[in-house]
């Protein structure tokens, strides 16, 4: 069988980049995207510069990926943004931006990749949730709400796509030391970590492990699930 083809959003840096390199090291083909150009160079990697909330651009990318690689086996909807702020100090434009990237972006990529997967009668979609949703973290109202929408979308889409052999799940990472949390005061991060059963930062490997679980052939009976890391429930 030809090597699997994965579409990963938000591959310029952080978790998305790590996932892309990890899949490439296994011999997979990977199509990634980000707003800015990427310096990831690999013969089996194709990068697309786009905004994940731009419907026409997403359609063009998935269409091009399908022509180039002839299939899409895996979609990892990693691209996401956060903004920490008290509700009373949050501009509407910030909420719009967060929902555009986190919810609309996830929706558009899932829809377009699922169209390819429906014809293959197989596929795996992994979305990104967050522990901020079940923990109801103060200062993260818009971010947590956007990821709550992703969770709901994951569960409904899992039902709609099950007849086509496609599973849809989500991983809910704890804070990982990436750009998303670098600007948060240390005291606040400590308080957050204390809310986890296992009180440490997550690592990229922790996330890859859960993504891998969803992608395993043996996980064909697992869909509509959200797995939080760090013992958050």
């Amino acid at each position: 069988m030809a090597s699997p083809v994965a579409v990963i959003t938000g591959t310029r840096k952080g978790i998305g980049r790590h996932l892309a390199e990890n899949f490439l090291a296994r011999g997979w083909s990977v199509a990634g995207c980000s707003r800015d150009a990427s310096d990831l160079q690999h013969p089996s990697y194709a990068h697309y510069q786009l905004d994940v909330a731009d419907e026409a651009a997403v359609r063009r990318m998935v269409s091009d990926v399908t022509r180039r690689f002839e299939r899409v086996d895996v979609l990892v909807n990693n691209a996401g943004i956060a903004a920490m702020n008290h509700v009373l100090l949050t501009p509407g434009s910030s909420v719009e931006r967060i929902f555009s990237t986190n919810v609309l972006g996830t929706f558009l990529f899932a829809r377009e990749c699922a169209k390819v997967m429906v014809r293959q009668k197989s596929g795996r979609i992994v979305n990104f949730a967050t522990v901020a949703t079940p923990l109801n973290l103060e200062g993260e109202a818009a971010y947590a709400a956007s990821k709550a929408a992703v969770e709901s979308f994951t569960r409904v889409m899992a039902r709609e796509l099950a007849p086509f052999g496609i599973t849809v799940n989500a991983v809910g990472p704890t804070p990982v030391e990436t750009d998303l949390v670098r600007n948060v005061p240390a005291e606040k991060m400590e308080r957050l970590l204390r809310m986890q059963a296992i009180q440490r930062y997550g690592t990229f490997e922790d996330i890859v492990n859960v993504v891998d679980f969803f992608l395993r052939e043996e996980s064909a009976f697992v869909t509509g699930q959200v797995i939080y890391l760090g013992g958050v429930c």
Partner: protein
Amino acid sequence: MTPQAIESLVVESAHLIAPQHARGSIRAETSLFGKDGILDSMALVQLVVEIEQRLQTEHRVDVSLTDERAMSRAKSPFRTVATLSAYIAALAGEAKPLG
């Protein structure tokens, strides 16, 4: 794409999705969805995906058959092979070819 090519794409796709209906039995006036339609709602979803993907990959035409205009039309374009073919022809005429 010629109107004939579009119609035969619709017929081929409908046959693929509903193989119990022989190719020759699916004609322009065949009802696809709704009263006496040969497709249930799940099969209609598959038909839309099949046609969109074939237009993209085989004809390099990028159209969305489920845009807001289609959904808000008083008369659904998904009624018959002929109405769907005409709808696709109209959309393809407006579409920018893929690069």
